[in-house]
C-alpha cells in the first residue's frame, strides 16, 4: 500500500500504515510496549506514561508516549534504551507506591497487568516507606459494580468507555493530584447497561462486579469461547467456569460483531444456569393431576404413546411445535425434522408473532452486516430501541454516529438510547406509521432534511418493530421504502437469541432448512430423499397454532424452550390457547415442554423434559446478520437434564424415525441439505477464520417487501409496547444480580396528555387494552409522541397488544 511508512524500531526497519499510533505499529511488528491506559478501541489519553519511548527528533531524542504519537516516514524509535527503561520502571514504581498489597485477596490477582509488569520489571522492594494513600475499601457505584479506589491507577479506561463507547458518562475523575479518584456523581449511580465492560478493561482490581467477586482464582478457571445467547447480535464471549459452574463471561474482541464489548445482561446473565429452580428431572403429570419426577424412559414412552394416539385420532396435522429461537441450530433443525419428517406436520414456528415477518427476516436481499455500519454514510433506524433490545448493536451504531461521522436517523415513538447521538430524530404515535412513511418518502415539511440525508448512500437501514402493539406490516413498508435508497443494505432485526438460526433451520411453516420456501415442491422432495422420510406441507404459524389450541383443531403441542403465554404479544390469543390446556381436563391438547424452567406456559403441560442449554451443549447459532457462530460446551447440565438433540432423537426413534444421532452428525447433515449453510462446519468455525463466524448465504427463499400503505383506525390514545433490557424474563428473574434491576410496569405519558387527562406523575391509573386491565403508576415522559401510552413489555402488567387503550384513575 502506498500510504505505508517505514520506521525504525530498535534498529530494525519495519513498515506501518501512515498515521498509525506508534504503540500499535510497534506491536504489529513484534515489539510490545508496556501500557496501562491505552486501549485499542478507545481514544488515547497518554496518562499512565507507561508506554514512554524515545523518538529521535531535530533536537535529539525526546521521550514521548507511544500511544499518542502517530508514526511518520523515517521515524527512529527506541523502546528499550536505558532512558526508556528507567522512565518506564519509574512509572511502575510510582504506580505501586500507593497501590495496596492485597493481591492475595484481589480478584484480579493472577491476571493483573500491573502485577505482571511488576513481576517482569519491578523492583523487589519498595523505596516508599510512608503510609499509603487510603480510601474507604470498595464502595458500590451501582447494583453490580464496586470500586476500590486504593487499587485504582487512574488510567481513565472506565471513564473513557462510559463516555466514548457507551454514552453513559456516569463516572468521572474527582479531586486532583494525589487525591484524584474515580467516582459517580452525587445521587447518580453508575447504572449503565454496559457497566461490566469497565470491569473487564480495568487493568487492576479497582472495579469488580458482584457476580464474580471472590468466586474463583484465574488460574483455577476453565474457559471456552462461545457466543452469547441472549439476543440476536451474537456477541463473542469467553465463558469461564470453576468447579463445573460458570462464574463469568468476558467479551472477546472480534471486528465483526461486538469488538470486545458486552451488555450487562449478556455478561451477568449466566446465574440462571445454576438457579435452584432449574429443571433437573423429567416431570410427568399423574392421574392425581400433579407432576411426578420420573425416569427418561417413562417420560419419553408417555410422550410417544400420546403423540401416536393423537396422530391416529386427528391426523399428523393436529400436532404442532413452537420454539427453537433459544436453541442451537442443530437443536432447531432436529426439532423441525421431528415435526415435518417424523411426525408429519407443517405446524411449526420459532417466531412468536413478535417479530417482523419471516419474509423480511430471512428473505431480504442485500442484507447488511453489522460491519457495514463502518462504511455507511447514512444509517436509518426504524425499529426497536436498540439500547434496550440489541445493546451491542446500539454500541456499533453509536460508534458510527459519534466516531465515524455517519448521519444517523432514528424513528421511534419516544427518545431511544441513540437519540442523543442522532443527526435527525423523528417521533410518531404508533398507528400512524404508514402516513409518516409516506410523508418521509415525499420529504414533506420538516422531513425534507431527513429525506435529503437518506439520499446519501451507502445507506444501512435497521428495520424492526418499534413495539409489539404496532403491526409487522409497517416494518415491511419501511423495508420497501428503504431498499430503494442509494446503495441500500437492510438489517431486519428480531430480538430472540437464535431466532434467525431457527428460521434458517426450517422452524417456520414457510421455510425448509437453508432458506428454502416450504411450498417449493421440488425442494420438499429433494429434502424427503435426503431424510428418507416425507416432508410435511406448509401448515400453521404461531398465531395459527395458538388459535388451533383454543378451538380444538390442534391436539398436541411440543414446546422447545418456548413460553408463549409470556412472550406472545397477542396475550388474548395466547391466554385462550392455554386456557384450553390448563387446568388439565380430558379432550384438551396434549402439551409437552422441553425447557430449563417451569414457566406459565408449561404449568399445564402433561410432560416436562429438562434439557441442557447454553454452556452445556455444543453447536452453532446464527445472528441477525445471518452469521453462523460456534457455541461450546464447558459444564454439564443440571441433574438428569439431557441435550435436546438426544431427547428429540430418542423420541423420534419411539415414533419410528430419526433426527440424527448427535449434534455433530446433525451439523454435517445441515451442511449437506441446507443450501445457505453449505459452507458452515464446526471445524471451519472452531479454527482458522472462524472467530468472525461465517455469514450463511444462498438459499432460494426470496422476499420482496411491500407496503400496504394503510394505517389502522385509532382512537384518542395508542399503546407503545416497547421492550426493556431487564424484564420479567427468565434470564433476568432467575439470577439474583439482574433480578433487582427489572423495572415494574408504569404508564408513560407525555406531560401534555397527562395534563389533559388530569394526571400527575405517580398517580395510580388503570390502563385497559384488548386483553385486560392493569393498575400502574403514571410516569411523565416529554420525549414520548403525544397521544401515546408507553408501557414496557413483560414488566408485570398484561393488557394485550391492541393499539387502542384507555387510561383511567385507579
Amino acid at each position, binding site marked *: 500500500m502506498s500510504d505505508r511508512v517505514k520506521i525504525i524500531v530498535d534498529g530494525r526497519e519495519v513498515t506501518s500504515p501512515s498515521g498509525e499510533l506508534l504503540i500499535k505499529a510497534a506491536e504489529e511488528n513484534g515489539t510490545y510496549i508496556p501500557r496501562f491506559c491505552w486501549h485499542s478501541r478507545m481514544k488515547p489519553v497518554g496518562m499512565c506514561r507507561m508506554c*514512554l519511548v524515545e523518538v529521535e527528533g531535530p533536537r535529539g531524542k525526546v521521550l514521548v508516549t507511544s500511544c499518542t504519537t502517530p508514526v511518520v516516514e523515517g521515524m527512529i524509535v527506541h523502546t528499550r534504551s536505558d532512558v526508556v527503561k528507567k522512565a518506564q520502571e519509574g512509572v511502575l514504581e*510510582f*504506580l505501586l507506591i500507593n497501590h495496596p498489597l492485597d493481591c492475595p485477596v484481589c480478584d484480579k490477582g493472577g491476571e493483573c497487568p500491573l502485577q505482571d509488569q511488576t513481576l517482569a520489571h519491578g523492583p523487589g522492594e519498595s523505596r516508599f516507606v510512608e503510609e499509603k494513600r487510603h480510601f474507604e475499601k470498595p464502595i458500590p457505584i451501582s447494583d453490580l459494580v464496586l470500586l476500590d479506589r486504593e487499587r485504582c491507577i487512574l488510567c481513565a479506561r472506565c471513564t473513557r468507555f462510559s463516555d466514548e463507547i457507551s454514552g453513559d458518562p456516569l463516572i468521572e475523575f474527582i479531586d486532583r493530584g494525589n487525591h484524584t479518584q474515580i467516582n459517580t456523581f452525587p445521587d447518580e449511580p453508575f447504572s449503565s447497561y454496559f457497566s461490566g465492560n469497565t470491569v473487564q478493561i480495568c487493568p487492576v482490581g479497582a472495579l469488580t462486579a458482584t457476580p464474580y467477586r471472590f468466586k474463583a482464582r484465574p488460574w483455577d478457571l476453565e474457559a471456552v469461547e462461545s457466543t452469547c445467547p441472549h439476543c440476536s447480535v451474537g456477541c463473542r464471549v469467553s465463558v469461564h467456569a470453576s468447579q463445573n459452574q460458570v462464574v463469568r463471561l468476558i467479551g472477546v474482541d472480534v471486528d465483526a460483531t461486538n469488538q470486545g464489548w458486552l451488555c450487562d445482561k449478556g455478561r451477568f446473565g449466566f446465574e440462571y444456569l445454576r438457579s435452584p429452580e432449574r429443571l433437573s428431572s423429567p416431570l410427568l403429570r399423574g392421574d392425581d393431576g400433579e407432576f411426578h419426577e420420573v425416569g427418561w424412559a417413562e417420560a419419553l414412552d408417555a410422550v410417544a404413546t400420546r403423540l401416536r394416539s393423537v396422530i391416529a385420532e386427528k391426523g399428523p396435522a393436529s400436532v404442532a411445535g413452537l420454539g427453537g429461537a433459544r436453541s442451537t441450530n442443530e437443536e432447531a433443525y432436529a426439532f423441525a425434522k421431528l415435526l415435518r419428517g417424523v411426525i408429519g406436520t407443517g405446524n411449526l414456528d420459532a417466531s412468536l408473532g413478535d417479530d417482523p415477518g419471516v419474509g423480511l427476516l430471512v428473505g431480504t436481499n442485500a442484507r447488511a452486516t453489522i460491519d457495514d455500519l463502518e462504511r455507511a454514510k447514512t444509517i436509518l433506524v426504524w425499529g426497536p430501541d436498540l439500547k434496550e433490545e440489541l445493546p451491542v448493536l446500539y454500541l456499533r451504531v453509536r460508534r458510527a454516529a459519534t466516531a465515524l461521522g455517519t448521519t444517523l436517523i432514528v424513528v421511534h415513538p419516544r427518545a431511544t438510547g441513540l437519540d442523543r447521538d442522532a443527526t435527525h430524530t423523528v417521533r410518531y404515535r404508533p398507528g400512524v406509521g404508514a402516513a409518516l412513511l409516506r410523508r418521509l418518502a415525499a420529504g414533506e415539511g420538516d422531513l425534507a432534511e431527513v429525506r435529503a440525508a437518506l439520499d446519501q448512500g451507502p445507506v444501512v437501514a435497521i428495520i424492526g418493530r418499534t413495539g409489539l402493539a404496532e403491526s409487522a406490516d409497517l416494518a415491511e413498508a419501511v423495508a420497501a421504502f428503504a431498499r430503494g435508497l442509494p446503495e441500500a443494505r437492510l438489517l431486519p432485526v428480531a430480538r430472540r437469541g437464535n431466532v434467525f438460526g431457527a428460521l434458517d433451520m426450517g422452524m417456520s411453516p414457510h421455510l425448509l432448512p437453508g432458506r428454502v420456501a416450504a411450498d417449493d415442491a421440488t425442494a420438499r422432495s429433494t429434502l424427503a430423499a435426503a431424510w428418507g422420510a416425507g416432508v410435511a406441507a406448509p401448515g400453521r404459524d404461531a398465531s395459527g397454532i395458538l388459535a388451533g389450541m383454543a378451538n380444538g383443531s390442534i391436539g398436541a403441542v411440543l414446546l422447545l424452550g418456548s413460553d408463549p403465554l409470556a412472550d406472545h404479544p397477542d396475550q388474548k390469543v395466547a391466554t385462550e390457547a392455554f386456557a384450553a390446556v390448563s387446568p388439565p381436563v380430558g379432550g384438551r391438547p396434549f402439551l409437552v415442554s422441553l425447557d430449563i424452567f417451569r414457566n406459565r406456559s408449561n404449568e399445564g403441560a402433561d410432560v416436562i423434559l429438562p434439557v441442557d442449554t447454553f454452556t452445556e451443549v455444543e453447536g452453532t447459532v446464527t445472528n441477525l446478520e445471518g452469521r453462523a457462530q460456534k457455541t461450546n460446551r464447558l459444564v454439564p447440565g443440571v441433574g438428569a437434564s439431557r441435550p435436546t438433540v438426544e431427547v428429540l432423537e430418542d423420541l423420534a426413534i419411539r415414533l419410528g424415525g430419526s433426527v440424527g444421532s448427535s449434534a455433530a452428525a446433525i451439523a454435517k447433515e445441515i451442511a449437506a441439505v441446507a443450501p445457505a449453510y453449505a459452507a458452515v462446519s464446526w471445524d471451519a468455525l472452531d479454527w482458522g477464520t472462524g472467530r468472525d463466524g461465517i455469514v450463511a448465504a444462498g438459499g432460494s427463499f426470496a422476499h420482496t417487501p411491500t407496503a400496504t400503505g394503510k394505517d389502522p383506525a385509532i382512537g384518542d390514545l395508542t399503546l407503545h409496547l416497547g421492550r426493556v433490557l431487564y424484564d420479567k424474563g427468565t434470564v433476568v428473574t432467575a439470577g439474583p444480580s439482574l433480578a433487582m434491576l427489572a423495572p415494574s410496569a408504569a404508564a408513560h405519558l407525555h406531560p401534555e396528555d397527562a395534563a389533559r387527562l388530569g394526571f400527575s406523575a405517580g398517580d395510580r391509573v388503570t390502563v385497559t387494552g384488548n386483553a385486560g386491565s392493569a393498575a400502574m403508576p403514571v410516569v411523565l415522559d416529554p420525549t414520548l409522541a403525544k397521544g401515546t401510552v408507553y408501557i414496557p413489555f413483560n414488566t408485570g402488567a398484561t393488557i394485550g397488544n391492541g393499539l387502542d387503550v384507555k387510561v383511567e384513575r385507579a
Partner: protein
Amino acid sequence: MTDRILTTRMEAHPADAHTIARYEATGGYAALRKAFGMKPEEIVAEVKASNLRGRGGAGFPTGVKWGFLAPSTPRYLVVNADESEPGTFKDRQLLERDPHQLLEGIVISAFAIAVNRAFVYIRGEYPRSARRMQQAVDEAYAAGYLGKDILGSGFTLDVTVHLGAGAYICGEETAMLNSLEGKRGEPRIKPPFPAVAGLYAKPTIVNNVETISNVPWIVSNGGAAYNAIGPEGSRGTRLLSLSGHVVKPGNYEIVMGMSWRDLIFGIGGGIPGGKALKCWIPGGASAPWFTPEVLDEPVTLDDIARLGSMAGSGAVVVMDETTNVVEAALSIVRFFAHESCGQCTPCREGASWLQRILERIVTGQGRPSDLDLLLDVSDNISPGLRWPPAMTTICPLGPSAVSPITSIMKHFRDEIVAMIPGEVTAGV
C-alpha cells in the same frame, strides 16, 4: 528613552485609572482608532517588528505566535489571567488598576488576528480583578468599544470574563482551554497546538495579560519604537514582582539589562536588617535558583537562560542568609504536589513522594539514603535533571516540582546533609 509603558497611568491616577473616563482622558482608545485605520496584517507586522515576547513564562515572540493561527473560523483569543505562580502578582495590578489598557489591547489584537470572541480567564482567587475587568468590559460595551461594529469599523468583538475555580494548572494554556470548555483543568497533549486546535477545537491564541497590555503602546508608537527599548531579546519593559527578603517588595516596571545587584539592592532596597543575600529565584517557583556569584549578570531573558534558569513569569523571590533552604524547597514542592492535576503518574505520585521525603528531612527523620532517593525520584519525573527540563509528563508541572530540589542539591548540599541524622555519603 521611555522606561515606563504599562504603569504610568496607574501611578499618575491611583484613584481612578481603572475607569473608562480616566482612561479616555489620558489618551485611552486612541490606539484602537489608529488600529482601525490600519490593515490587520499591518498591525501583526508592527507587533512582529516590536519583538514583543510573551510575558506568561515561555517568552515566545507574540507576533510569530499570531502567525501560526490557522485560517479557519471561528477562532478565539484567550487572555491568560490565571496568574498563580507563587511570587507572581504583576497581572493582578494590570487587571485591577488599568483594565482598559488590557481591553484596548484585546480589541486591537482581536482585530489584527480576525477574532470575534475573546475570553479573559482570571484566577479564581482574584475576585477583585474579575470585578474590575467586568466593569471595564461593561463600560467598553456601553461606549461602543466592544460589541457590533466597533467605532464604525465594521469589526465585531465580544469579550467574556471568566473566573477560574482555583487551580494553578489552569494557567497552562491547554488546561485553561479545557477549563473554559467546562472540563477538568488538565493539560492536553500537544500537538495539536492551540493555534491549530484550541478552544472548542478551533484555532485559538492564548496570550498573557501583560503581553496584550503592551499592544496599544506598540500600535500608538510603532513596533520600531518598542524594539528600541531594552537589550536585544528582552525588548520593551517588563513588570517584575519582587518579593521575599527585600526591603521594598512590590511590582516594578523596568527596562531589562540592569544587573541583579541593581535590582535587588537598588530597586529592592537590599536585604532587611543588613543580612546577607543567600539566593534568589529569578523567574517564578519553577525556575532554578541563583546564588550571589551571578549578582552582576544582567537581568535579561537570554542571560537568565544562559545561566541555566528562566525569566518565567517575572517573579523574583529573594532569600537571605537565615533561610532554611530545605524548608523553602519543601514549600515549593508542596505547592506543586498540591496543584498537580493528577493526570500523569510521575507528577501525581512523584511530586507527593518528593514532598514526603523533604518533610521527613526537615523534621529530623531523614535517612542517609534520602539524597539518592530524592535525586532518583526527581530523575524519574525529569530525566537527566537538566535545564530546560526533559519530562516523563504531559506538561512541565512535574519537572517544576523537581526544580527546587536540584537547586538546593546543587548549591546547598551540605545544608541538607546536616539535617539528616547519620552519615550521608551519596547524593551527588
